[in-house]
């Protein structure tokens, strides 16, 4: 019996007890949260279908290997696994697309593989840059975004590099 086997039961029990003690309608929150989880999946599925069809085609044609070889010197220098190349393209542009590509990488290579971990960290430490800028500036009536997008893209580039670096540092 290890601690990690107890994580799930303890988390469920702890969240329930803590919430109930703070007068939260725990069961209602659980179902509402589950609804939200379902809506994330519903948002991801429609983009997962065409994207995975394209990704599988891309792999089967040999184009993925070629792109990997082409980018290898650059990616190797940054320590980013070549398998993550599609994620780099999609991440700033589409949130559901990035989730789709990322979960497929985790499933294919394993959640605890280097590729799987780098993909997870990339997803966890970034937002959909163009969407965020468009939504916030659009809602605020900003027409001149000035240096927002260049600065945000600098952050994205650093994030890709740092994700791979951090996984190597933390997991050795």
């Amino acid at each position, binding site marked *: 019996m290890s601690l990690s086997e107890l994580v799930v039961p303890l988390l469920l029990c702890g969240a329930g007890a803590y919430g109930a003690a703070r007068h939260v309608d725990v069961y209602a929150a659980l179902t509402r949260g*589950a609804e939200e989880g379902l809506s994330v999946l519903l948002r991801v599925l429609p983009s997962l279908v065409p994207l995975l069809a394209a990704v599988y085609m891309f792999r089967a044609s040999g184009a993925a290997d070629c792109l990997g070889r082409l980018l290898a010197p650059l990616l190797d220098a940054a320590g980013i696994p070549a398998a993550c190349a599609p994620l780099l393209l999609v991440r700033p542009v589409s949130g559901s697309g990035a989730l789709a590509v990322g979960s497929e990488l985790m499933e294919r290579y394993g959640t605890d593989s280097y590729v799987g971990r780098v993909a997870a960290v990339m997803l966890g430490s970034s937002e959909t840059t163009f969407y965020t800028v468009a939504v916030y500036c659009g809602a605020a009536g900003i027409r001149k975004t000035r240096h927002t997008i260049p600065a945000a893209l600098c952050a994205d580039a650093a994030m890709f590099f740092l994700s791979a670096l*951090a996984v190597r540092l933390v997991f050795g």
Partner: protein
Amino acid sequence: MAMTWVWTGMVTLSLVFGAATGHLGALGPAALEGARSAVELCVSMAGVMCLWTGVMEVLEQSGLAALMARAFRPLLRRLLPRSSRDAEIFTAVSANLSANLLGLGNASTPLGIRAARLMARGSGGAASDELCRFVVLNTASIQLFPTTVAGIRAALGCADPFDILPAVWLASAGSVCVGLAAAKLFECFGGNAG
């Protein structure tokens, strides 16, 4: 539109490469296989994912988000000194930040929009330096608990979905710093709009 180019580019390249490498016959089955595995992946993740987001909702309603917002206020005051003087903006900004920290994307966006609208008052359609900084803060996404990704990892059978946390903190803190530093550089070398 960008995704249109990415997607069309991928399938077109596949066709060209398939023809060049003689794998043309494999493309059709691969595309159909991809579409099928998309649904299988979603269905296999659904149960754990929903249980997961349910637990996170309980924690959020228990006041965990508010607790976190309080811890980050001093930092925000330094980062956005002008906006911090306005109580209304400051509340919206710190609520947005705490929702981000918990990885509650759906909750953070409306709060962030509110903050951005308030910050843009009287700016005449050009983003102020602080608004740029605030948007960069959001695009770089500082997350303490990347719940969606952890949910996916759990759903895919990962025994310890949160073991990536330290790596996520390192990467997102670093990228936020780079983003803010870049914004600062652009502020110095570009025109100053306050």
